[in-house]
């Protein structure tokens, strides 16, 4: 086999050294009754793999061959060629979690740089080395808040949080005796802050709100922070479209205790939904309760600056069931991709990506609002994503557009049974969209009424 470097001659010599006569002898401890060769097709060569997977790939519409307006927590932002090609380097691709700092300074320093970027973007003190993705990052943030605020069992979540994030929270919470209550949205698409405030009480350990929220509306961090802190709850800021952090007031500036979410927008391709890049940042005061890996700066035996994993006593391999999380493998390579991306675009570029995305979204809003039969139900300011209400059911409409190589949006009916939502869909715009694409979407909508 082409991946197996042991020739028959080598194998025989090795068996002799081991002192057995066949490789089968080494499997003696596996009961014969459970052994069975798999019923799989014969091995495929690279040429066949390219044909087969190439064929599967060709069956999918994607951002490189369609006018693309899908979002809902996963965005088609610019990824540089330098970042893409850097990931091919074996030193990045085929190394493990940097347990041994003397031979892992590359990965360790890159994580340290990533942690710094996240702190700067969220305006927080400390960030971890990554989490799986946005939804589980929110779970980790809430569990962290629960550890920090003893004796309270309830988390208040805005309905503006991505529905799959909220569903994930329920999955994790169900057996931990933790309770979730959801705060409604107001008519303008934002969280109804007064309703939320009424739900917060002395049993509430955390208030979590996402901005821009799932409908694209920009929330008022300050008011929410006030609602949470006034009752002694922690304020968890959730960000699912991290490109917005370069333009909008970061949660850290509005008093967030923990910020978490999805950083895919910052240099990670869509990958059909994964691998993504969960992140979590917090205040220095809370850093010992942070989940996941942390890299710290230190020195080597000769006094040179060096980096190492640190505070491991929080982690499962030492703390076991008392660990701050069960996470072990995280999203290392995606954190590297994002570090390269943020470093390359930097202060100016991250901002320009955000402002272009917003300006283009505003243009598309106007174009669609002008199409007879279509309206924008929400009045709150948005960043780069917004809800459109069609004259008829949205899902079939979007399927019709897809056949015309326009991926026009995501139907809300996927997550909502509300009748009104059956005619609604989310449209996302980024710096990658051209005016022509947006005009073509508006035109196509006009034709499909």
């Amino acid at each position, binding site marked *: 086999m082409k*991946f*197996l470097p042991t020739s028959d001659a080598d194998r025989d010599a*090795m068996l002799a*050294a081991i002192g057995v006569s066949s*490789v089968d002898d*080494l*499997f*003696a401890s*596996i*009961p014969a009754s*459970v052994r069975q060769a798999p*019923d799989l097709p014969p091995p495929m060569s690279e040429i066949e793999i390219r044909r087969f997977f190439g064929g599967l790939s060709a069956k*999918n519409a*994607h*951002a490189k061959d369609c006018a693309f307006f899908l979002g*809902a927590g996963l965005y*088609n932002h610019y990824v540089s060629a330098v970042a893409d090609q*850097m990931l091919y380097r074996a*030193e*990045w691709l085929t190394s*493990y979690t940097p347990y041994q700092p003397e*031979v892992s*300074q590359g990965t360790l*320093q890159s*994580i340290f740089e990533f942690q710094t970027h996240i*702190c700067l973007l969220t305006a927080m003190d400390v960030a971890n080395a990554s989490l799986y993705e946005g*939804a589980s990052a929110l779970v980790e943030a809430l569990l962290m808040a629960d550890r920090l605020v003893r004796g309270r069992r309830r988390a208040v979540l805005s309905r503006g949080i991505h529905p799959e*994030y909220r569903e994930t929270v329920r*999955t994790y919470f*169900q057996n*931990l005796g933790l309770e979730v209550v959801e705060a409604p949205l107001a008519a303008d698409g934002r969280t109804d802050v007064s309703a939320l405030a009424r739900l917060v009480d002395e049993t509430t350990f955390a208030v979590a709100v996402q901005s821009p929220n799932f409908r694209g509306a920009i929330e*008022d961090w300050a008011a929410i922070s006030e609602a949470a802190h006034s009752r002694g709850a922690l304020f968890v800021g959730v960000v699912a479209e991290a490109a917005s952090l370069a*333009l909008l007031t970061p949660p850290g500036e509005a008093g967030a205790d923990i910020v978490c979410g999805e950083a895919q927008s910052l240099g990670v391709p869509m990958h*059909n*939904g*994964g691998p993504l890049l969960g992140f979590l940042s917090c205040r*220095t*005061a809370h*850093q010992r309760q942070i989940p996941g890996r942390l890299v710290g700066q*230190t020195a080597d035996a000769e006094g*040179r600056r060096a980096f190492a994993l*640190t*505070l491991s006593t929080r982690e499962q391999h030492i703390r076991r069931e008392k660990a701050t999380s*069960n*996470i072990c*493998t995280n*999203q*290392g390579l*995606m954190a590297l991709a994002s*570090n390269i991306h943020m470093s*390359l675009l*930097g202060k100016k*570029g991250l901002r320009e990506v955000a*402002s272009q995305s917003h*300006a283009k979204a*505003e*243009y598309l809003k106007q174009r669609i609002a002008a199409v007879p039969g279509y309206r924008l139900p929400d009045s709150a300011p948005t960043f780069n994503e917004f809800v459109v209400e069609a004259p008829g059911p949205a899902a079939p409409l979007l399927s019709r557009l897809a*056949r015309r190589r326009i*991926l026009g949006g*995501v139907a809300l009916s996927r997550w909502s049974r509300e009748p009104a939502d059956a005619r609604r869909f989310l449209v996302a715009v980024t710096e990658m969209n051209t005016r022509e694409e947006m005009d073509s979407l508006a035109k196509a909508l006009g034709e499909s009424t």
Partner: protein
Amino acid sequence: MSVEIGDPTASAPALGDRLHPEPRHEPIVFERSGVGKVGYSLPPLDVPDVSAIPAGLLRGEIEGETEITEVEVARHFTRLSRLNFSIDENTYPLGSCTMKHNPRINEEMARLPGFAASHPLAPEEVCAGTLELAWRLEQSLKELTGLARVTLQPAAGAQGELAGILMVRAALAKAGNPRTTVLIPDSAHGTNPASAHFAGYKVKELKSNARGTLDLDVLEAAMTEDVAALMLTVPNTLGIFEDRILEIAKIVHAKGGYLYCDGANFNSFVGIARPGAMGIDVMHMNLHKTFSTPHGGGGPGSGPVAVTESLVPHLPRPTIERRDDGTFFLDFDRPESIGRLRTFLGNYGMFVRALAYISSYGNRIGEVARGAVLNANYIRAGLTGVYHLKYDAPSMHEVVFSDKRQAEKGVHNGDIGKRLMDYGFHPPTISFPLIVHGALMIEPTETEGRSGLDAFVAAMRAIAREVEEDPEIVLKAPHTTPVKRVDEVGAARNLILRWKPAGRESRIGSRES
């Protein structure tokens, strides 16, 4: 770029560095930043440059972010990468981590635009290829595990463990009583108890017997009606196969419990034997171990979970289904599902790589296990008598020695690991299993050739000799790495977790309240 000697008027480097005046470390990327530099460009805005966001919701510039050019970024990350050890450099025998060769064709396939640039929320009609690929991966994993269904959703092994235990809990709850406890051998990986805990269970640790395996009497005694599941790693973290697995399953099942298998070590019997036939009810796999998706310096991984019939109703939502007409769809209508553990379908990019890997071996995938076990036993034969072997039961894909003998000379497993770096190898795993004090957990994987194994054995023997003749050389190791031994204690004592402009660093450690 050697900023340290960046000043043309600087004087010659200090004597100690005479031969090697170049600073060995790479500046932090923020230190390469310079006012007014740009490393990117975007198309000119082709719409009116409007902002419809109230000033109160806007931030100022991102203070401290970089200003840097592409050439500096390319150089920075290329230079940083060269400070890493990787599989493509040499043998990486990190026990339990299965550091095998990552075939390059898998990377090529994962980058096909129909996968890398696709979106899971596109209309079903234009996702036929992505759905089919995931469905085919599930079929392959079903065949290899001999279990009823597989969820691909978990992002890594630990999340797979949680998903598995949550499904067990759902099934038991449905049957009337979720129970309170999960049994876990003392040799288990830390994620097992942690995952059981986050599923709401108490953890009861089972002491391993003298063979390093599960003691059936201990199990009998612990296996009450209150026990939801036994979490067993097969083969266990000592590389020993629980040869009484069938009796173990009987005992667990007899009390209405479930047998959970931590499949991180599936590499040692994939294609040879089927967990389902062993009485295993639920098992996670690490695609980034057995199925060769690259570790990427700490992920991404992917932790599919295979389950027995009775747990199928509780699989995470959605499942991927095939219609009679051969088309595929996502089934969200699963009322008894534990729900979701994350967004979308899982780490899809890893699905592509893993299916490409499985396709490369096809029905000969058992060769993987055969090679892995052969190699581990060859190393065992080469080091027996040189290093102490606490448990001498037959080894599967890895062997766990200890530093018992060397410790008498004051040299510990960590020191031996560091010294291996000078010989051009990555150290074995030394942080666990906890039941072997001073563990040297060695997993060569099947992709190491004999000459590489010989070289590794020779190095381990040479180090053992050095411990006798000249322990200092080992205690002070490594001598040849980009940085010398790193002060990990210092890192935890004075916490510096992010870069700050010069002068402000000191404060960080102290800011903690």
